[in-house]
């Protein structure tokens, strides 16, 4: 199987669960990363860029469920 770059990305098709980080006051549904997505997330997080998002790219370049705390730290 030619995985090319695909094999370098986490939680794509390996059936592993990506834990979701909950935030106070936000409803977070659990999900497993068994499909083509890195993780499933039901929460939309308000960003300082005037838009909501469900996923962000973290410091290491991984796509993870959005966490409002990340934006507060960056401010």
């Amino acid at each position, binding site marked *: *199987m*030619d*995985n*090319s*770059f*695909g094999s*370098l*990305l986490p939680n*794509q*098709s390996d059936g592993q669960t990506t834990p979701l980080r909950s935030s106070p006051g936000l409803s977070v549904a659990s999900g497993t990363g068994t499909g*083509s*997505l*890195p993780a499933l997330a039901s929460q*939309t997080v*308000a*960003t*300082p*860029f*005037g*838009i*909501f*998002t*469900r*996923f*962000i*790219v*973290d*410091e*290491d*370049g*991984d*796509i*993870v469920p*959005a966490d409002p705390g990340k934006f507060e730290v*960056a*401010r």
Partner: protein
Amino acid sequence: MKVLSDSVGLACPWDPRDFSATVRAVQQAHRGERIVEVRLGVGPLRHHLPARVLGHAAIVAGILQSDVIAIAGPLRRLWLFSSAPKAGNHEIGSAVRALGALAGALRVAGITSPIVLELADAAQEIPANLEVALPPKLIAWLDRAAALSGNTAPAIWYAREHVALSMFADLGGEDDLVLRITVGSAPEGKFWGVRWRVRAAALAHGLPVTPALALILKALRVPWYNATSTEPELGVMKSPTAAIAALDRAANPKYGGNFGLVPEARALRRIVNFAGVSELVDAVADAKSAERYVRQSGFVIAPRLDSALKRLL
């Protein structure tokens, strides 16, 4: 507030000073005080020019028409660059075919914004004294990605150069009132992990940094220009049914295919019968016709590509 598509991950600069400047720039873009430029990077072609470029363009067009506008307002221009020279690949014919294919596919998919085509500078553009500490996990990924892609440039050097003016243009032009947005597949997110750190180092050295965000298409795992050995070539699109079947097979692990190709395989079905597909396939069939095509189709040919094309003739 609007919501970004579930298919994208938002990448922003994590350095607080850079982050704040980018927040202000987004507000300025919405007020029409900054122009919005989207940059797409095209790496060296691996194996061949794949039919998947059409599916990729269909997906990117959707992001340009929805998410980019939602986050920053109207798109002023689209800037496509080939990173091939930076990666150590100097086959200009291959680079112009790839650029022409993606630009033409975006037109087929309905993108009407001005499109600029350029080549990255093979020379080093980022000052060597910008010290950037990268996490070991990211370094390991860059090394593996370089080995798989066949790039001959040193992996970390190539990653740092992503911020160069001839690539994603993070560095250069403080008075250049632009908000730059990268749209790319999942591996571009990894390069963002390098880019925001180089941006922070540049700011610490007093160098100008252009506000930027990235929208990373998280389900696109294999860059379209890194065709797998079993994928159909773009030329197969002369017989669309065969091309779709071949790409479906290349995306099916049951047949030894790569599941990461599925989103673009599905998107290919949406675009396959659009006007202009057949003409595009012919136009980029070889380097000479691709050169004519990019010059005659209303794309803006930036200086480095222009010079290279003149040498190609």
